[in-house]
């Protein structure tokens, strides 16, 4: 696991120095993170990296979990999808199961933090313990895109959210009318992880060899799950429009979940759309192959993210960090990362994507400049160190209601 000093060459010694000063301002405060699992899923991934780094900076950050049975997690999975705006059948029984397990956790989970940092809906009801800890501050961290939430689930959660001192969302469009303070904290990538660290050219070449991808023509790539919302067939259509004018190849690579029938279906449809074109490489990448994803991104001439809907779009962040010119849909968190014509090109359609890809392939100098801008934008805003800073400021906000705070 990287140490905080390992980030100094990337973000600057002075930035890490500022983090240490901020950590000093949280002396004596215990931050208790609570979520539902230690492994698997984005939240656990973030906490696995953030908690040790906060501790190394001198913040007394800790991490505990709630417990729940299969029926509880089935219900919360449905809640999760419904909050994302997906159509789900939510039954009264699910709410009952949710409340029963929540009550057990209220009785069993030890609550001791000065700041209680509760992640996502699963442990949300723990806030009922707030009254028994009068000096504690409670923050609800919503990692979900709740821009168009299922009303039934949102209304059920609302009375609990109102009891918190603050809530955190990942994009401005996710915020809801609430009587508590709401903060904006974007996700981040770890520049030292396998998915993002620098790779030697030999590693990149080996991965290309493994997947039989020649280096003789430009490579357009989309990295994403095989999911309708990522529009892989739309990417193939855009590639075909580009191919009429510029000889190039296309990689569509990402994970397929064997337990997700939709993903298998989308994969099959994508394969079918590719037909017999040998310049299209549809690659199911097994989970845990982060270095392969990293290599494919680095080998690409242009990276595409033609999603129809997107949460934050961390694959875009990863591509920008590799200084790649990007063509991406203007949806979800993507416009926060890609400013049109500054750090990439935004599109709204297949033909728009194709036009932008052609522009970048035909103007390598322009493409290079966009890529470099993108990398600097990520360095400043979407690396783990910025996330650490935001979390510490969030904790400090609990003790400072004013807009300008002198520490």
């Amino acid at each position, binding site marked *: 696991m990287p140490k905080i000093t390992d980030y100094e060459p990337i973000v600057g010694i002075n930035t890490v*120095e500022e983090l240490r000063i901020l950590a000093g301002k949280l002396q004596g405060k215990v931050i208790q993170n609570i979520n539902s699992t230690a492994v698997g899923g984005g939240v656990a991934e973030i906490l696995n990296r953030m908690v040790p780094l906060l501790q190394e900076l001198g913040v007394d950050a800790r991490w505990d979990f709630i417990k729940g049975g299969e029926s509880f997690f089935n219900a919360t999975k449905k809640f999760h999808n419904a909050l994302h705006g997906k159509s789900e059948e939510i039954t009264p029984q699910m709410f009952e199961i949710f409340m029963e397990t929540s009550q057990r956790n209220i009785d069993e989970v030890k609550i001791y933090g000065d700041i209680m940092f509760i992640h996502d809906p699963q442990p949300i009801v723990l806030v009922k313990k707030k009254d028994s800890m009068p000096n504690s501050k409670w923050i609800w961290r919503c990692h979900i895109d709740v821009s168009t939430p299922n009303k039934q689930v949102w209304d059920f959660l609302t009375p609990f959210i109102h009891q918190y001192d603050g809530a955190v969302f990942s994009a401005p469009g996710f*915020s809801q009318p*609430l009587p508590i303070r709401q903060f904006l904290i974007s996700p981040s990538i770890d520049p030292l992880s396998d998915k993002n660290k620098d790779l030697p050219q030999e590693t990149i070449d080996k991965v290309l060899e493994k997947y039989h991808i020649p280096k003789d023509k430009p490579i357009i790539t989309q990295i994403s799950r095989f999911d309708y919302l990522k529009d892989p067939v739309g990417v193939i259509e855009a590639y075909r429009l580009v191919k009429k004018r510029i000889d190039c190849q296309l990689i569509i690579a990402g994970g397929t979940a064997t337990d997700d029938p939709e993903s298998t279906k989308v994969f099959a449809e994508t394969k079918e759309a590719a037909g017999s074109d040998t310049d299209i490489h549809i690659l199911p990448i097994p989970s845990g192959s982060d270095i392969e994803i990293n290599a494919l991104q680095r080998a690409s001439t242009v990276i595409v993210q033609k999603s129809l809907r997107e949460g934050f779009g961390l694959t875009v962040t990863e591509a920008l960090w590799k200084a790649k010119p990007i063509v991406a849909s203007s949806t979800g968190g993507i416009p926060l990362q890609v400013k049109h014509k*500054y750090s990439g090109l935004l599109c709204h359609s297949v033909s728009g994507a194709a036009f932008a890809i052609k522009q970048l392939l035909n103007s390598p100098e322009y493409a290079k400049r966009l890529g470099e801008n993108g990398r600097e934008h990520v360095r*400043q805003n979407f690396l783990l160190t910025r996330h650490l800073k935001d979390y510490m400021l969030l904790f400090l906000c609990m003790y400072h209601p004013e807009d300008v705070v002198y*520490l």
Partner: protein
Amino acid sequence: MNALNKAKEPFKFYTQVSIPELTGLKAANIQELLDLIKTVPGSVIYHHTHRFLQQHQYLSPEPPNDFAYWITGILGEEELGEALYSIDTIQYTTIRELRDEIIRTIENCIVQHPRSLHKFATPGEEFHFVKSVSFIFQTPYTASDLEEFQAVLQRVTINSIYFHMFESRLRIGRGTNDFSNWLEDSLSEKKLANKIASLDPYTHTMENLRITLIKLIEKRIVKSMEKPSEAELAFPKP
């Protein structure tokens, strides 16, 4: 006189970091945007006219405010966008004055182009009002003369330079930037202080601004090392 002075008071470098706080307010057209600009807290206006300075370290400066960016990019009102881009922020010493100028610019445009009122952002592309919560704290760095000052400027974060050049002037309401104040008051470097005060920092990237400041100071240091001319020796300044 070219010699460098020791400061009466050392310059203490502070820094500033901020976290965005969501207001839950959003606008889908120019009228809604205008109505909210008139009523939101000053911290919101500050956020949307300054956040780009710290967040967008592009190789070239980014368009200088979110209102202009949204009006141009989402509503397609390029003329109004340009009018907002070109507001000379440096000439305003309070958020109130800056807000009034933004309001005046939008109102003028609506009078000239009433059709602009009929343009709506598609769902998901509305303008979201956000405010900046700033935390200000002292760094370990101080400077007592120009050479130390130049050395520290190379070392501190862009957040520190940002605080002394922008935030203290406009948000804290000190009227001019902290560097110029100190150079003039504690080092009697009036000419250098004026040069820095007359920069338009909004058209620089922060790293570029750092280099510009360092170069100005360097020039002054080099000048201090030059031998005085015969005329200066013959007629020394009192």
